[in-house]
């Protein structure tokens, strides 16, 4: 028995040692994966939803062609977990050179930890014309340019021309107030049950109500007083009661994505982000929808000029701990510059680097409806979530409270008060 025991112990030891060697072996192989010899540098570039964002591959291919000594290692992550994974990579010390930030408002949370390189010297060295970028200065945090905007998106109004024709209502103009929209929606609503046509559609995101409250640029979602949101909520509830938009709890509990009702032709008007146009073009090409669609400027609150809209930016920065900052800068300069912008436009996306031709080029794209260039013109773009370290947490809180109003569990005033209390608590820390 003792012998057996010794044998087992020996076996255990041997197994442990093999495992250790194996591990050591692995570590060697993973180390020389990238940047040995030959002068080529490999940059790690985490992205989300690679398959549905083909412009990323276009840009990487174009870049590698013009920069033969730099390779880009694209790491594809599902969008819902992207921010988690990016943080884990940055925090856990994993190699990651280009920091592509999904929610622009979370930039400060990386910047405050010192994970983003200050880009000012690079910009000065290469003489980048920063005036061409949308919301460039918003990314300047405590005097440091933490990132450069790569993409931008803002809200416009999508509409179904056939429903307007059938209801004999004039197409929406590019200068319309929210109350005019509300009225228009009631004219467009018809039918019952499965055949019901809804005049409007407000998606379940709190943004699709609260954005109209911050559109004037006077308040932000950081509050901490939220009474300014009351008119927007009142409108949403009024329309829900009148049946001119789909009921929030129905949408929420049946996971209805905003795209389906619009593409099935059961919704006449849909305030949605510019990203939706490329989805519409793709679905029409695939023959999965035959909606005859158009774009108009987002309706605006009374007393706010037409063309004021709400949007967001998607920035790129350099990991402050990257070994290859100069190479990473080369990539960012390319992706966020003219070449990158052209790749974005070619795929129906709005680049943050814009000149006088951008909107026209985008509108000239195959499949875009007539008059989109005019409709996409803006006079001001307010960020839906301000670039602030409290944004993400406040936004989470707002999404919780938002549902209480929309399912009519609590009166608007009570919830707005609660929002205010919780917001102060979050930001007070």
């Amino acid at each position: 028995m003792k012998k057996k025991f010794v044998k087992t112990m020996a076996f255990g030891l041997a197994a442990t040692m093999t495992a250790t060697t194996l591990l050591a072996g692995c570590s060697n192989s993973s180390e020389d994966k990238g940047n040995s010899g030959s002068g080529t540098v490999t940059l790690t570039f985490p992205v989300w939803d690679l398959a549905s964002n083909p412009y990323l591959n276009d840009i990487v291919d174009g870049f590698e062609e013009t920069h033969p000594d730099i390779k880009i290692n694209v790491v594809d992550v599902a969008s819902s977990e992207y921010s988690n994974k990016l943080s884990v990579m940055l925090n856990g010390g994993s190699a990651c050179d280009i920091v592509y930030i999904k929610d622009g408002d979370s930039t400060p949370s990386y910047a405050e930890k010192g994970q983003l390189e200050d880009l000012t010297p690079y910009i000065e060295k290469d003489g980048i014309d920063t005036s061409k970028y949308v919301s460039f200065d918003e990314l300047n945090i405590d005097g440091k340019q933490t990132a450069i905007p790569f993409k931008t998106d803002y809200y416009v109004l999508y509409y179904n021309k056939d429903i307007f024709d059938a209801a004999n209502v004039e197409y929406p103009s590019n200068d319309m107030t929210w109350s005019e929209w509300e009225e228009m929606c009631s004219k467009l609503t018809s039918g019952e049950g499965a055949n019901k046509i809804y005049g409007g559609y407000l998606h379940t995101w709190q943004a699709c109500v609260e954005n109209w409250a911050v559109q004037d640029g006077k308040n932000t979602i950081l509050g901490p007083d939220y009474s300014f949101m009351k008119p927007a909520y009142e409108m949403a509830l009024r329309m829900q009661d009148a049946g001119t938009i789909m009921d929030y709890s129905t949408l929420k509990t049946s996971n209805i994505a905003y795209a389906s009702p619009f593409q099935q032709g059961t919704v006449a008007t849909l305030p949605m982000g510019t990203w939706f146009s490329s989805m519409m073009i793709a679905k029409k090409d695939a023959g999965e929808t035959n909606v005859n669609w158009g774009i108009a400027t987002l309706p605006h609150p009374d007393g706010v000029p037409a063309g004021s809209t709400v949007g967001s930016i998607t920035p790129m920065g350099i990991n402050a701990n990257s070994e290859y900052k100069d190479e990473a800068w080369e990539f960012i300069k390319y992706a966020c510059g003219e070449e990158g912008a052209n790749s974005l436009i070619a795929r129906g996306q709005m680049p943050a680097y814009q000149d006088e031709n951008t909107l026209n080029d985008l509108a000239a794209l195959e499949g875009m409806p007539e008059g989109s260039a005019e409709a996409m013109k803006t006079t001001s773009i307010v960020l839906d979530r301000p670039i602030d370290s409290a944004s993400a947490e406040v936004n989470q809180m707002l999404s919780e409270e938002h549902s209480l109003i929309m399912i009519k569990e609590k009166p608007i005033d009570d919830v707005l008060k609660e929002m205010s209390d919780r917001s102060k608590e979050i930001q007070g820390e």
Partner: protein
Amino acid sequence: MSGKAKAKKGGLSLTVRQNLIGYSFILPNFIGFFIFIFIPVMFSLVLSFSSWDGFNEIKFNGLNNFIDIFHDSVFLGAIWKTAYFSFFTVIFSMLASLGLALLLNQKIKARGFFRCALFFPYVASVVAVSVVFNAMLQPDYGPVNEFLRFIGISNPPGWLASTDRVIPGLIIVNVWRNMGYFMIIYLAGLQNIDQSLYEAAEIDGAKGWARFSKITWPLLSPSTFFVVMMLIINSFKVFDLVYLMTQGGPGTASTMLSQYIYNQAFISWDYGKSSAAAMILFLIVALLTVFQFKAEKKFVNY
């Protein structure tokens, strides 16, 4: 009691040898467990007394995290909601899985098919499950409420769209998911019961309930202990399903401990508070575990 006779032959004393044999069994698993699970867990224990953003220096801050979370109404609410959710999940899941195991341990036609069908909820992707149950529990036209109206309940609950019915709704879904899983453990447990006991009982004239309460139930006690333990742990930790079905809403009506822990770590980037909340969760489960172990010593027959 182990090998008393041989103890004299070996050079080592009995206890030392017994210890070594015991350790040798544990070792292969323990090395991996210790490095990859235990060390990170201990690290998070340290974190619960510190403030950390996940990247920069860890600063010790004593009990501040615990003081903070106990002043947070969302956290306090989460404790109660988790307890409420877990209590009913544990009871109903245990009863359902035991019932199913007893039914499916008999000789019936298509037994394999029935077992497979009932195990399916556990295997199916949570994404699909959450989507379909959202539709089934839909307040206005969902099949569940249509059925309730059909049997004469004019004002059926709003389920996931109402702050006080959302947790019962989640309990239903969770029990549905759990029952096949724990049915398997009970089925395995039933295999360990010596059939001769039943034969003897039959001779004594014990039938039905007496058979169950005198033989099956006591001899299943190790399985029951395991099932209850796992149910407690799993329901206290429940995350995926709730995250996908309600995101903790409406409002914070279904924000339970693990959701709170997740939000603190991944939305607020406050690992200290997140770990502190996890330690509270751990303490609750640990207390229940110790209590269970005491009970196991008393009641489990083996």
